[in-house]
């Protein structure tokens, strides 16, 4: 079976497993929507008092938040189980992937789906549509074409960063705290435009943990604020950043597999 078909098959199976728990889906979706509404409301209250945050008005901030969320929700739909990698390694359940005659990587990433991501997607699309209208944006066809590319790049950036960091547990046995760290930077970048922070923070989220490419730089382009960037091409390179990270992750995964020794679960 070719890798893509295998992956889709695995995702299909995981989806069916999830659909066993309908009530869980509704309470989960409700909670996720409530969380997002609370976060947006806090941003709203702040900006309502101050009118803008460093030149970003309320709808632009919502746009920034929702652009991140749209990339993130695809990540959370398909890859949320990276958080459990350390548990798999400690318990030895990771062995099951090595015993089957198929790519370990495909088997691992197709292991689970998290339907909660759908609720995030709902919020993100509604938020983006609303801010598009409220801001009176008129994108050219090329920008419209670029939007899905940005969103998927965002997904890939988050996915690769998290997978690489989760792979730390092949060496140390623990990775959740490092994943927390990535999440922390993600959350900050989701909520606030990077230009309000000091230099070192901007360098970190651009170069070291490049989460700013999930929403901030492309948003500058989409909102016509690209003059705020140090150099204008930063708005376009999210897909390139994503591809570089994919390459890096392949290498890390390769070494992690060589390093793996079962705990004998």
């Amino acid at each position: 079976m070719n890798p893509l078909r295998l992956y889709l098959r695995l995702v299909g199976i995981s989806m069916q497993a999830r659909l066993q728990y309908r009530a869980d889906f509704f309470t989960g979706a409700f909670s996720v929507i409530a969380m997002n509404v609370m976060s947006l409301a806090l941003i709203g209250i702040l900006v309502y008092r101050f009118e803008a945050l460093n030149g970003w008005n309320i709808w632009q901030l919502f746009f920034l938040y929702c652009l991140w969320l749209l990339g993130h929700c695809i990540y959370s739909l398909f890859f949320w189980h990276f958080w459990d990698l350390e548990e798999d390694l400690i318990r030895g359940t990771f062995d099951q992937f090595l015993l089957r005659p198929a790519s370990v990587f495909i088997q691992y990433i197709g292991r689970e789906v998290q339907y909660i991501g759908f609720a995030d997607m709902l919020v993100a699309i509604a938020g983006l549509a609303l801010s598009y209208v409220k801001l009176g944006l008129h994108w050219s066809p090329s920008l419209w074409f670029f939007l899905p590319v940005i969103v998927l790049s965002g997904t890939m950036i988050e996915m690769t960063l998290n997978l690489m960091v989760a792979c730390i547990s092949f060496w140390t046995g623990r990775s959740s705290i490092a994943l927390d760290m990535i999440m922390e930077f993600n959350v900050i970048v989701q909520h606030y435009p990077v230009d309000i922070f000091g230099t070192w923070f901007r360098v970190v989220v651009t170069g070291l943990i490049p989460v700013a490419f999930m929403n901030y730089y492309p948003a500058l382009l989409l909102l016509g604020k690209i003059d705020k960037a140090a150099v204008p091409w930063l708005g376009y390179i999210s897909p390139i950043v994503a591809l570089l990270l994919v390459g890096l992750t392949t290498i890390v995964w390769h070494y992690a597999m060589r390093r793996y020794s079962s705990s004998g679960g």
Partner: protein
Amino acid sequence: MKIFWAFIRQAFQFASVYRFNFFVEIFLTFVRMYSIYWVWRILYTQKPGAFGVDMKQMITYGVLGVAMQIFMWSRVQWYIANQVKSGAIDTDLMKPLDFHIHMLARSIGETVIGSALALPALIVAFVFLGVSLPANIGTAVAFFISIMLGFMVIFHLNFILGMLAVFTLDIRHISWAYMSIIRFFGGQWVPLWLFPPALVVIANFLPFQSTFAIPMSIYIGKIAGADVIKALGIQFSWMVALALGSRIFWTWAHRRLVVQGG
């Protein structure tokens, strides 16, 4: 008292296993403080004096809000939910220790360890972010009392949340919504006095302002003079009400409890 001490020691031993995590947590707490610092700094440069408190006070409020996140770390709700789910709760019920007190001791233990994480980050913030100390000894004492009461309020809220697991088995999703409501109406990030009037009315009827908003407002001097006594009174009343409420709830839940497998 010995019981509380035992749980603090246990929590410390648990935390010391993961020393690396400890340092990363301190770092992350500081990063969070740093981001809040910049938000207020930018907002104040834009529109100075829009809020009744000066920039230094507001930054102190924000940084303190991050430090007090340790309140959220008490995991009694997860502990109860896990014990109910796995059936291991029967071992807790067999202990010659009141369940309510047991959970309180556990929660205090975790929070003391949490404070050990928050303090270094707070000290760094004092040095680099220009956070101020309480104006005088009286304020410091009032803050100290208020933070204790705030802890008791949030502990009982967590305790009640955990007991819901007796009925629903899983509290994961409920607790997401619960935490964001506490953050919002607790004024952990954006202080309540900036809220639109209608929301302030709602917040005043809820127990959540007793958790973060009151201690932090006392610290920066937003609540001062006779208002301090009134604010502490609100916290105290909520503590008593929630302690009684959770006691009654527990008695009832205990009777409804079904131990699976065990």
